[in-house]
C-alpha cells in the first residue's frame, strides 16, 4: 500500500486509497457488491460509494469487510484501519474553509497526494507557480472577494498550497502554459515582471517542468480550456482530470474521459516548445513586456 503520512494527502485521496484496496480484495475473490453489502448489512450502492472513496469508513464495517475478504494478517488489518481513520481527519486546508469552496478543497487534497501534476493553463500562470502579487491581482481582478482581509487570506491560502513543491518528496509539476497567459500583464508590468522572473527561477527546480505553448503553434486541442491531470503513487488509483469552472469543478476519473484529456495533454506537450527552451522564451517575453 502507498505511504500515507499526514502530509501526503488529505481525506479524499485516503478514502480513494482505502476504497481502491477494498475493490481489489472483493473482485479478487469474485464477490459481487451485493454479497459484500449483505455482510455489513448495507446496500450495494453503499459498497460502490465506499470503494470510490466517496464516503468515510466505520471501523466495524471495515473490519467486517476485511474479514469477508480473508485478510488475516493482523498488521494489514491494523494498517488499513489506521488509514481509514486518517481518511476521516481534516487536511490543513480546513483553516481556510470560509474562503475555500468545497469543490476546490477536494482539489487541494488530491493535489497534495499526487506524485505527478500535469496542467495546461491557457489564461493564467499555473497556481502553484504564481507570485503573491500575481495572486492578489487575479483575486482582485476577478472581484472574488470584497474585503481586504478576505483577499489576504486567499493569497495566503495559495501560498500555503505552493509549499507542496518544496516539501520532502515533492510531486513533479509538468505544466504547459499558453503564450497568452505569459503576455497578459496581470497586475501591471511590474507584477508581471516579477511573475515571469519567478517562472524562470522555477525552471531550475528539479521537480518542475515548464513548457511554453507559443502562439506560433496555431490552433491546438486544448483551446477549449485549462485542465489538470493528477497521477497518484498508488497504481490502483486512477488518474484524475480536474476542470475548474466559475462556481464549481469537475473531477473525471472514468477511463474513457481520462484517455481523452490525456490525449489532448500529450498533443500539446508535443506541440509546445521543449522544456530546455523555456527559460529563453520567458526571457524574451520579459524583455518585450
Amino acid at each position: 500500500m502507498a505511504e500515507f503520512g499526514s502530509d501526503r494527502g488529505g481525506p479524499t485521496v485516503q478514502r480513494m486509497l482505502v476504497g481502491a484496496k477494498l475493490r481489489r480484495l472483493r473482485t479478487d475473490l469474485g464477490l459481487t457488491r451485493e454479497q459484500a453489502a449483505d455482510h455489513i448489512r448495507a446496500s450495494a450502492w453503499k459498497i460502490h460509494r465506499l470503494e470510490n472513496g466517496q464516503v468515510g469508513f466505520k471501523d466495524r464495517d471495515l473490519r467486517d469487510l476485511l474479514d469477508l475478504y480473508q485478510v488475516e494478517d493482523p498488521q494489514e488489518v491494523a494498517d488499513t484501519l489506521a488509514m481509514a481513520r486518517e481518511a476521516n481527519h481534516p487536511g490543513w486546508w480546513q483553516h481556510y474553509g470560509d474562503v475555500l469552496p468545497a469543490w476546490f478543497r477536494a482539489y487541494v487534497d488530491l493535489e497534495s497526494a499526487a506524485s505527478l501534476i500535469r496542467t495546461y493553463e491557457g489564461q493564467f500562470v499555473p497556481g502553484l507557480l504564481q507570485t503573491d502579487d500575481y495572486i492578489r491581482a487575479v483575486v482582485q481582478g476577478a472581484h472574488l472577494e470584497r474585503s481586504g482581509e478576505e483577499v489576504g487570506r486567499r493569497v495566503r491560502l495559495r501560498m500555503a498550497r505552493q509549499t507542496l513543491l518544496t516539501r520532502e518528496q515533492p510531486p513533479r509539476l509538468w505544466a504547459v502554459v499558453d503564450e497568452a497567459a505569459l503576455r497578459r500583464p496581470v497586475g501591471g508590468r511590474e507584477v508581471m515582471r516579477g511573475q515571469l522572473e519567478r517562472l524562470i527561477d522555477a525552471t531550475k527546480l528539479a521537480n518542475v517542468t515548464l513548457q511554453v505553448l507559443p502562439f506560433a503553434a496555431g490552433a491546438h486541442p486544448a483551446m477549449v480550456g485549462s485542465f489538470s491531470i493528477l497521477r497518484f503513487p498508488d497504481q490502483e488509483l486512477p488518474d484524475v482530470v480536474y476542470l475548474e469552472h466559475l462556481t464549481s469543478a469537475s473531477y473525471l476519473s472514468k477511463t474513457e474521459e481520462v484517455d481523452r484529456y490525456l490525449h489532448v495533454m500529450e498533443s500539446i506537450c508535443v506541440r509546445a516548445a521543449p522544456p530546455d527552451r523555456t527559460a529563453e522564451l520567458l526571457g524574451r517575453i520579459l524583455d518585450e513586456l
Partner: protein
Amino acid sequence: MNELNTDVPQSARVYDYWLGGKDNFPADRAMAEAIAQQVPSIRAQVRAQRAFMGRAVRFLVAEAGVRQFLDIGTGIPSAGNVHEVAQELAPESRVVYVDNDPIVLTHSRALLSSTPGGQLAFILADLRQPESILDDPAVARTLDLGQPVGLVLVGIMHHLRDDDDPQGILATLLDALAPGSYLVLTQSTPDFDPEAMRGLAEVSERGGIPNVPRSFADTERFFSGLELVEPGLVPLPDWRPDLGPAQEGGQSYAYGGIARKR
C-alpha cells in the same frame, strides 16, 4: 513520425501498460491484453527485460569503464532508466536516448534529469534510419565518439523485419563507435515456446507493429565480428544474475548478450 497518433497501438505505450504505467490508450491496452492472452507471462517477461538492462548497464559502468551510452528504443520513462543506473555508479555518465514515439520524447525531456556532472539528450528517430540517429547534432554534442560507447538495443530488435536489414543497421551504428565500445542487445525467440511466440507475433503484426522472434543462431549472428563477454548469449535471467536483484522465476522468451567491439 512527429504526429501523435493514439488510435493505433504503439510499442512504447504497450510496454508501458505491461509495466503498470498509465501513459497508454485504448488501442495500446487492447493489443497488450491480446498479447497477454497468447503469452500469459508477458508482464514478468517485460520486467525481466528491464532487469537485464539494469544489470547490463551496471556491468558496463562498473566492470567495463563505459561512461557514455546510446540507448535506442528508450520507451516511456519508468523505474531504472539507463542514465539512472549509470549515474548512480558514475555521476559523470552521459546518455543519448532515442525513440520513434513523440510521447516518449516529450516524457523523457520532461521527466528525466541528469546529475549535474552528467548529460542527457533526447532524439526522435527510428532505428531503421541509423544515419538519422548518428547525424543528429545531439549525438556529437553529448557523446565523444572517440571514446567507447555502450550501444543499448534492449527490446527493439524484434521490431525489425529481416527486410529492414538489421545486420546492416547494426554495422552502421557500430562503425561510428570507437574500438572498446559495447553492444547490449536482446532478442525475443521462439526457441522455448514456439506456439506462444507465433501467437504473439501474429497479434502484434495484426496491430501494425512488426514482431520477429529469432532463433539462437540468428540472434548470435547480430554479434558477429564482436567479442561476446561472459556468459555469452543466454536467456535474459541467466545473464549475470549476480549484478542485480533476484529474478522472478519462470521461462524467458528472449536472449540477451553483451559484446565488445575490437
